[in-house]
C-alpha cells in the first residue's frame, strides 16, 4: 500500500485549498464566511469554512480533519489561546497558520488578523458611560462566560466602568458583583446559547432589579433578546441597552433609539483579509505580512447617528 497523502487532492482544479475556522456558530462567523469566500474567488484558492459547535473540543477534531485533507493553510480563531498552544504548533508544523479574531502571540503563527476584543469591551464601556452618565447598575448577558471573546469583552467593559487605567487589565470572575465609583456591575448571566434562556434571564433580571440602569448583550444574539424583553416589560427608555455586533434587530433597535449603541467588529474583513493572506502565503508570497505581524481590522461603535450608513454598507458587503 503506497501512501500518497501529502500531495493534496486532485480536485479543485489545482487551486490550493485553505481553511478558515471560527470559534463558535454565530451570525458573526457567517458574515466572516462571506468575506472569506469573496477573497477565495479573488485570489484563486478554495476555502473550507469550519465553525465548531462546541468550542475548543470541536476545533481540535476539525483541525485534525483539515490536516488529513491536506490543507495549505489555516486561519484559526483559537477558542482558548492559552491552552491551545500545542494544537497551533501542530498546525504550524503541518501547514501555514495565521490567527484571526483572537490572537495567540506565543503561537508560531505568521500573523494575526483582527482586533482585540478587550479593546472592544472598553469601547462598549464607554458607550455605557455615555448612555448613563450619572452612573447606575449594569448587568451583562452572554452565551458562554468562559469563551475567550466573552471574557475579553466583559473584562474590557468592567475595567472601563471601574475606571481602571488603560493597560491595567483586571481578572474578575463573572459571577460576582463589582462595585465601582459610579457604576455597579451586578453580574453576568449565561444561557448556553439557548435563546429562550437568554430571554428569560433578562426577564428575571428585570424582575429582581426594578431599578436596573443598563443591560449589556455580550454575544450578538443577546442584545436583541434584551431589547425584546425590555420592550415587553414596558421599560424601554427607562432601561438602557448596549450591545455587541451587528444583528439586524440590534441595528433596528439602534435606529429606533431604544438601543443606545452597539460595538461592531468587521467580521467580513476578518474573513477577507485572512484568506487574502493565506492565499498569498500558499503561493509563497510573504510580502503580505506586516512587520508587526498584526493586520488590524478595528472595531467601532455604532449609534443612532451613524447606523443608517453602517447598515447600508454592511448589506452591500454581505450581498
Amino acid at each position, binding site marked *: 500500500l503506497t501512501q500518497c497523502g501529502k500531495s493534496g487532492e486532485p480536485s479543485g482544479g489545482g487551486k490550493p485549498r485553505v481553511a478558515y475556522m471560527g470559534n463558535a*456558530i*454565530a451570525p458573526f462567523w457567517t458574515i466572516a464566511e462571506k468575506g472569506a469566500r469573496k477573497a477565495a474567488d479573488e485570489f484563486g484558492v478554495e476555502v473550507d469554512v469550519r465553525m465548531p459547535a462546541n468550542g475548543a473540543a470541536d476545533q481540535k477534531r476539525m483541525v485534525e480533519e483539515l490536516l488529513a485533507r491536506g490543507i495549505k493553510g489555516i486561519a484559526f480563531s483559537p477558542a482558548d489561546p492559552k491552552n491551545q498552544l500545542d494544537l497551533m504548533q501542530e498546525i504550524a508544523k503541518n501547514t501555514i497558520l495565521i490567527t484571526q479574531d483572537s490572537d495567540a502571540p506565543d503561537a508560531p503563527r505568521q500573523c494575526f488578523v483582527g482586533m482585540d476584543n478587550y479593546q472592544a469591551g472598553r469601547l462598549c464601556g464607554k458607550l455605557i458611560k455615555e448612555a448613563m452618565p450619572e452612573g447606575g447598575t449594569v448587568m451583562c448577558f452572554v452565551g458562554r462566560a468562559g469563551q475567550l471573546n466573552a471574557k475579553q469583552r466583559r473584562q474590557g467593559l468592567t475595567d472601563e466602568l471601574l475606571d481602571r487605567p488603560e493597560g491595567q487589565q483586571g481578572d474578575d470572575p463573572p459571577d460576582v458583583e463589582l462595585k465601582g465609583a459610579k457604576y455597579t456591575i451586578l453580574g453576568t448571566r449565561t444561557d448556553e446559547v439557548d435563546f429562550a434562556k437568554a430571554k*428569560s434571564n433578562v426577564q428575571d433580571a428585570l*424582575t*429582581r432589579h426594578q431599578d436596573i440602569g443598563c443591560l449589556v448583550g455580550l454575544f450578538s444574539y443577546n442584545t436583541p433578546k434584551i431589547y425584546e424583553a425590555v420592550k415587553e416589560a414596558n421599560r424601554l427608555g427607562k432601561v438602557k441597552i448596549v450591545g455587541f455586533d451587528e444583528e439586524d434587530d440590534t441595528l433596528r433597535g439602534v435606529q429606533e433609539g431604544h438601543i443606545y449603541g452597539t460595538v461592531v467588529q468587521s467580521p467580513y474583513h476578518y474573513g477577507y483579509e485572512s484568506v487574502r493572506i493565506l492565499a498569498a502565503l500558499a503561493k509563497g508570497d510573504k510580502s503580505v505580512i506586516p512587520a508587526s505581524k498584526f493586520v488590524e481590522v478595528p472595531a467601532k461603535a455604532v449609534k443612532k447617528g451613524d447606523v443608517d450608513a453602517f447598515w447600508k454598507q454592511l448589506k452591500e458587503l454581505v450581498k
Partner: protein
Amino acid sequence: MKKILGITTLLVLVCVITAAVNQNFLGAYNVGNVVKWTSLFAILGIGAAFVIITGGIDLSIGSVVGLVGTLLPWLLVKKGWSVPVALGAGVSLSVLIGLFHGVLITKVRLQPFVVTLCGLLMYRGIARTLTHDQDQGFEGKFDSLRWLATGRVQLPNDYWLPIPFFIMIGIAIVAAIFLNKTVWGRHLLALGRNEDAARYSGIRTDRMIILAYVLCAFLSGLGGILFALELNTVQPAGHGNFYELYAIAAAVLGGCSLRGGEGSILGVLIGAAVMRVLSNSIGVLGQASQMEFAIIGVVILLGVTADELLRRRRKV
C-alpha cells in the same frame, strides 16, 4: 392524584420561599413571564408524556422544536410563503416526523431510544443545513402571527395571562380527556403496562404507539412554532437543545413512569411549572447562573426522594 402530591408541595414550597425573599416574584410582570414559559414547556411535556406512557422515549423533541422553529421564519421571510402555508408545512412536517418514528419503532422494531436519538441528530442537521446555520427571525414583521406567543389577556391589577397559557390549557384538557376518558387513552395505558397482554386483549398496539409518537412530534412542532414566535429569532444550531430533557423531566416529575403505563396530564403541568419556577426563582433571587443547574438538580432530587420516602411510609 397521590402521585403528584409531593411535587405539588415542592412547587408551593419554592414559590413561598421565593416570594418571601423577593416580593417582585409575585408581581404582575414576573407571574406573566413564568406562566408563559411554563406553558411553552408544558406543551412539550405533554407530548413527552404520551410517549413515556407507552414505555418509550422521544429524544428528538428538542431537535423538532429546533427544526420547525427555524423553518417557520425561514419559510415566511426567506422563502416568502404565506402564513397558513408555512404553518401548515411546520405542522405537517412534525406529524410526518412522528409517523416516521412510530413506524420505525413498531414495524421495524427499532428501540425508541435509537430511533429518536438519530432523529435528534438528523433534524438538527437538516435545520442547520437548510439555513446554512444562519439565525432566522421574523424581522419585525408578522406581528399578528406572533400574537399567538406574545399576546396577552389583561387581568385586574396589571396582571395578565399570555396566549400560550390558553393554548396550553386547551391542549391539556383535550389530552387529559383523551387519556382518561376515551378508549384510546385506555388502550395507550394498557399497552404501556404490558404490550403483549394488550395485544392479546385485541388492542392494536402498533397503531396506538404510532399515535403517541405522532402526538409527541406534533406537540413538539407546535412548541417549536410558539417558541420561535416568542423569541423572534432562533439559531438553527442551538434552538431547542436539551429541551427533550426538560420535557421528559416535566413528565417524569409529574408522575409518568418511564416503565410505561402511568401518567397524569395535570402532573406534567405541575412538573413543568416546578422546572420553570425553580429556574425563575434562581434568577430572581440573584443566584449566579453557574449555579442554576446545580440548584435545579438538587431540588428535584430532594423532591423525588422525599416523595418516595413519604409514599413508602404511607404504605407500611
